[in-house]
């Protein structure tokens, strides 16, 4: 039963499109089971930094009890989007969808208040630089030079006010070649051929962590899969979606659907948990787009994280040498909470000869990276990173494995800041190394 009044509530005090769904909000019955799993609540112990509190605020705006105010915006942006609450929620509230829409409302409102120049810069970043895998290309020679001359050691960026202060300490050692320029647009399989997959190379990953993509293609190829890497693919859209630019995210979704359809691949794989999670969201994201809806559903159904894909094609082909390493694994939030992938990465790790897997306490807790969170909320991100490093320090391990771009950068930053002699890498990098 739905009265007219309840229809009206779906808009409430949300003035832009893409309001959080009232029907989804009312399923939060406020049991509080999310609270002990929420990293920001654990830091502040304040309800407003908890999933239950955020949902109450979203609902209050729907019910015209509150506005999309500055404090509302702060509450929504303080959320990491780690989705630990979604795993914990007995009532199945889709917190991820709700927080994205709440942030979309916030961003739309802030756009009207921000200085014009900042909007232009923001657009440039989202629509050009990080729009696809090649946007960062022009900057790479400068970054390489910057690091080669050790200018980064001067840590000049800390003088920049705002979110970009201190970025260079987080920047990984920039590789010489990007994923695309290393691999081209096709990697043949070692016969017998078992199948053909598409590879998403990622916006940041392509240039800054190309080792991940190269290892992924290598492991796929070694296991009999041809890898198609369309050059004109774009970013998965997770970044704009997380910062409240759902329209751009939709545009990117449509583009990727077209590109991979044209490339003739059914299965599209990403080795970055944040990206593979986003690929699986296309069906939801384009649910109101008549032209793309069915294609998006099909695309999302066939999208997979590399850890999932490989463990479905177990056992991995022979030919790996023994690595003789003690390894621990930190679950990327968008793998464990976003996609419910928990066992597969562990199965992969213990399938590598000579690897001893040691569980990291609180491995399901966010490391603080959370997309752009470590830039926008540096202090909170550092607090969470410290918590992670405190657990890590107590383990006697050689390697900290992960499966996502943001986590990779954040964890490597943490390890280097704390002078821990532990290598940070992606699971597929270990497998690829074992094949050499």
């Amino acid at each position: 039963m739905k009265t007219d009044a309840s229809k009206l509530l779906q808009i409430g005090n949300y003035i832009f499109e893409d309001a959080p769904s009232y029907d989804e909000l009312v399923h939060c019955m406020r049991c509080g089971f999310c609270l002990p799993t929420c990293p920001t609540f654990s830091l502040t112990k304040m309800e407003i930094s908890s999933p239950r509190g955020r949902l109450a605020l979203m609902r209050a705006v729907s019910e015209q009890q509150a506005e999309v105010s500055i404090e509302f915006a702060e509450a929504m942006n303080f959320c990491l989007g780690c989705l630990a609450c979604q795993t914990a929620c007995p009532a199945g509230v889709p917190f991820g969808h709700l927080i994205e829409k709440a942030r979309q409302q916030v961003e739309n409102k802030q756009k009207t208040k921000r200085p014009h120049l900042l909007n232009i810069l923001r657009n440039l970043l989202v629509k050009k630089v990080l729009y696809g895998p090649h946007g960062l290309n022009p900057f790479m020679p400068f970054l390489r030079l910057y690091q080669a001359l050790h200018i980064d050691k001067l840590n000049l960026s800390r003088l920049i006010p705002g979110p970009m202060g201190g970025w260079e300490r987080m920047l990984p050692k920039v590789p010489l070649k990007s994923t695309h320029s290393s691999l081209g647009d096709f990697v043949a399989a070692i016969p017998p051929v078992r199948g053909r997959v598409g590879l998403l190379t990622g916006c940041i990953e392509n240039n800054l962590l190309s080792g991940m993509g190269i290892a992924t293609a290598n492991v796929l190829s070694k296991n009999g899969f041809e890898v198609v890497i369309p050059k004109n693919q774009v970013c998965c859209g997770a970044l704009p979606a997380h910062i409240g630019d759902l329209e751009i995210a939709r545009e990117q979704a449509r583009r990727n659907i077209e590109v991979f359809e044209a490339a003739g691949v059914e299965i599209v794989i990403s080795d970055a948990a944040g990206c593979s999670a986003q690929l699986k969201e296309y069906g939801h994201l384009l649910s109101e787009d008549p032209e793309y809806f069915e294609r998006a559903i099909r695309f999302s159904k066939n999208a997979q994280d590399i850890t999932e894909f490989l463990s479905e094609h177990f056992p991995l082909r022979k030919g790996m040498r023994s690595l003789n390493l003690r390894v621990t694994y930190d679950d990327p939030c968008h793998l464990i909470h976003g996609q419910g992938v928990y066992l597969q990465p562990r199965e992969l790790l213990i399938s590598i000869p000579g690897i001893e897997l040691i569980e990291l306490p609180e491995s399901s807790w966010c490391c603080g990276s959370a997309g752009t969170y470590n830039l926008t909320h540096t202090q909170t991100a550092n607090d969470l990173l410290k918590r992670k490093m405190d657990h890590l320090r107590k383990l006697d391990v050689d390697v900290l494995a992960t499966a996502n771009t943001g986590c990779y950068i954040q964890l490597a930053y943490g390890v280097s800041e704390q002078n821990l002699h532990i290598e940070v890498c992606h699971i597929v990098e270990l497998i690829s190394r074992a094949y050499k």
Partner: protein
Amino acid sequence: MLNNPSKRKEQDIIFSLLDDLMGSQYVLKSKEQMLVYAFDATAPVTDQMPSAVVLPGNRDEIVELLKIANEYHIPIVPRGSGTGLAMGSTPLPGSIVVLMNRLNKILEIDSANLTALVEPGVITAELATAVEQEGLFYPPDPGSMSISTLGGNVAVNAGGLRGLKYGVTGDFVTGLEVILPTGDVLLTGNKCKKDVAGYNLSSLFIGSEGTLGIITQILLRLLPKPETQRTAMALFDDIQPAAQVVADIIAARIVPVTLELLDNICIQSVEAHASLGLPVDAGALLLIEVDGYHSQVDGEIEKIIHICQSNKATSVNVAKDQIHANQLKAARRTTLAALARRKPTTILEDVTVPRDKIPEMVRKIREIAQKYDVEIAIFGHAGDGNLHPTGMTDARDTEELSRVETAFEEIYLAALELGGTITGEHGIGIKKRHILPKQVGEIGLDTMKSIKKSIDPNNILNPGKVFEL
């Protein structure tokens, strides 16, 4: 909220007194902050905003806070994690909500005397884990133990899954430090196992739902950790034989730790959340745990299996290890919230009857559900007679909502007729105060009111909760 200018001025004075007392970062006043404390876990509730939320950092601040409140006659609503199920910690108009979360230290675990001294904001599960590391055991385990506070547990005398064998929170309280509405500090009880010096004042505050004082320290009894546990899961085609098993186990002189009943709707909802491979087509499920010495639990679990089988259980399985048993129990704790997957408004009740009346109570609940054509899921700690019939509805459908509410009025009465109680472990709050007189009678209610009036003459502590003066 205050239109009257003189009232507004008074509020400004109070706010500045609070700012000076606790520091302004611990005195929340914005609308957004009020909104997130405007509810607890009770459904369906119209959110009610307080005028301020404060986070005292120590006992002395609470003493001063109550003096101010008593002078200006401000309603005070103590709050832990807001997981209550009877509107015991929901704000009142013009009230100040007092969050106890900053008082969250375990002050002492005394292995020689088997006690723990804690502050009220300690999370129940954190104490349970801490004492377990010392080889000790704190049995009360409310469904929300992963986030509920011990102060809140004492205030509603919370139960849990282990109530059957070990009792409820109040059975483990052996002393309290309480701030009275005047700001006086009352100490009750001590570490002694025996103590009959005067009235048992601890018991006065256990289950008082924040209406008599603010608890600032709790002295709890502990037990040695049992040697082992054994957990079994029995399935039935229908809920009625499962209810009979509950009565039969007790009659066979076996006291399990846990004897939990879930009907088909609950099984489906829990499985949708936890994916444990529960049989979603089973009519009912019993989760049974015994603990003690190896020799004892093996014998008991065999007898229990036999009782289940003679009541037409379709299967009885013993959990393969403690990890699996813990998964089952953790999943059981999520039942209420998991039901919210099916319908957004889950109206939970807490009726409790003498244990031999469980089969009859279950029958009555089903008859009443049928009579009013409403969906009522049934789960609960059946072993201690405590059932949680849950009305599945959508608060926006006012017609159905009113049928559910009428059905529950009848369920209360049915429980009372069977010699039961309207609430076994959740408390009265606002939600059940209209029905309290039916259970405790005029003399009972008057006695409670005179206690309240003598301790809190200005009626500032959680006024209107439990009963209206």
